[in-house]
């Protein structure tokens, strides 16, 4: 467990609806600096909508989202990215006609400043920047062990590697808050274990605060510091993984009324079982 301190993100009473369909219904939570915070819930519960609000892709009608004293509401996605919010998407959203290296360098784009004239001459700032940021990109490539795919077009890479490149692209932004939207969806056990290791390394070595949305309960219960459960856009429970596993409301949402009160074996939930 990482050392946790002041809240980095305060998500307060946020409401988001689309023409009558309520996606996020007054959810509040706080994420502390250095924490690995997980959000779980059945399909359509509003997990990705929360991420889209955080990124500025959706604009909630009510509530407030504050990152380290700055309100993220009414801010454009690229400005929010500039404040240090990075995201790994649920369905791979890589720039598929570019190489792994170019994808990761695109994560560095918001730290680069060269203008069009400098770029056209490839002199001065543009040239210096390429080398400086290439170094950082290579560090991330090493960290994620994808050096052999450096010059491959990402569209041609296997699924698990594409996911890793996407993580790398988000890491290249040097974010303060990293949003992981189902990082191990569709992965086999080995790939899942690799990803879990990377996530823990990010927390411990890079000290990046993370919000994890995931259906793989084994992974969530193993690595998350705190878990929030949502259903139909509402918050059901929040607490440590152990508290969540024994919470009757959570069991009701996932398994149905008849399972409430039955003792669920802790081992069963943490052995990679999907609730």
């Amino acid at each position: 467990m990482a050392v946790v301190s002041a809240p980095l993100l305060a998500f307060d009473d946020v409401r988001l609806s689309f023409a009558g369909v309520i996606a996020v219904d007054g959810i509040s939570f706080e994420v502390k600096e250095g924490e690995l915070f997980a959000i779980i819930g059945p399909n359509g519960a509003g997990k990705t909508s929360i991420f889209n609000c955080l990124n500025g892709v959706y604009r909630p009608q009510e509530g407030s989202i504050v990152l380290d004293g700055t309100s993220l509401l009414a801010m454009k996605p690229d400005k929010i990215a500039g404040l240090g919010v990075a995201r790994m998407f649920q369905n791979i959203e890589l720039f598929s006609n570019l190489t792994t290296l170019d994808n990761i360098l695109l994560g560095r784009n918001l730290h680069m400043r060269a203008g069009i004239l400098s770029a056209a001459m490839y002199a001065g700032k543009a040239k210096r920047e390429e080398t400086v940021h290439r170094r950082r990109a290579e560090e991330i490539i090493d960290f994620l062990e994808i050096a052999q795919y450096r010059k491959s077009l990402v569209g041609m890479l296997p699924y698990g590697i594409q996911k890793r490149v996407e993580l790398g692209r988000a890491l290249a932004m040097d974010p303060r808050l990293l949003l992981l939207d189902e990082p191990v969806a569709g992965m086999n056990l080995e790939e899942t274990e690799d990803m879990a290791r990377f996530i823990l390394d990010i927390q411990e070595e890079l000290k990046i605060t993370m919000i994890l949305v995931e259906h793989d309960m084994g992974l969530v219960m193993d690595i998350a510091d705190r878990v929030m459960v949502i259903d139909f856009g509402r918050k059901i429970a929040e607490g440590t993984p152990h508290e969540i596993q024994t919470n009757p409301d959570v069991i009701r949402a996932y398994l149905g009324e008849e399972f409430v009160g039955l003792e669920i074996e802790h081992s069963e939930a943490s052995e990679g079982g999907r609730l």
Partner: protein
Amino acid sequence: MRGRPALFTRYESDSAMLPTTTQRVWLLVGLLVVAGAAVWLPRDWLILIATAFIASVGVIGLNLVTGYAGQVSLGHAFFLGVGAYAGAAFGGEATDKLVGFGLDVVLWIPLAGLVAAVIGAAIAPIAVRLRGLYLAFLTLGLVFLGEHVFREWDSVTGGPGIGRKPGVLRLAGWRFDLDGEIAGYAVTREQQIYWLALIVLIIMAFAAKNIVRSRIGRAFAAVRDRDIAAEVMGIDLTRYKVLAFAVSSFYAGVAGSLLFTVTGFVNTNSFNLLLSFAYIAMVVIGGAASITGSIMGATFLTLLPRLIDGAGGVLPFLKVSSQGLLSTSQLERIVFGALIIGFLIFEPRGLNGIWMRIRNYWKAWPFSY
């Protein structure tokens, strides 16, 4: 790095435009051959190839916005027109009816580009709200708007049926558009235009190559491939789309300003939809998102009519005088259409794709991959 040309020990050399000595040497040799060819090429071929060089600049511009940034523009003819008239106004002579500043060629070419870029940047904010087909239609509207303005603005364009001369190719008293003498050797007007166009193409092509390998080119590609993801990663979509349009228009402006110096006359109805389509075709046939492909596409389609003309004597079904099935201009249009369809279906990466495949085959030879 003699002996191990593929081993790079520095990031600079790994991301260099021409990483190996072989590539640098061949490019230099190629350029020298192209430049030297002007000495023995006949006048009409010089003019044709010079036109291909200038068209290449325009196609590179269209490729930057459409191939790299993914914003389909059918309005390229409009920006070519803007460049042509800006060049004519800055570089042409003033008469009692026409505006002209009589500037040097090194001034009026970039100025023509700048005027087009400013107009491109001014229009782009409207265009960035749309994408795909809708954007294509909006940019198509530009062409009609442009045609009207070019017809009506007599003091700059000369008006329909009258037209005007393009900018004068003058540099510090020297005239590129007149036969002259350099260091005792006679040089023709055509040779000078050919070399001038080649120099402009080299500068513009290298600049484009640099743009696409820098952060800006990567951001263009990100906007093209996944715009939402790009935005979430801190890429301001509006800013980069406006930039793409402005840079593309700059290239169109430069190309437009020179395009008619070879014929010596700008006609107000030259900048029509057909010209836009011809440029789109050059991008498709050359290869989208490729600078080399842009040059290949422009050269191929510019030389095509001439090649078909040459085939007139060989192909039996071609009409030579009044007999035969088809006239050469009919065949030209058929071939043009067939090429677009053929490339879209069989080689979407264009001539550059074919070239890459040949290159990779020989790189791996005798193995298949």
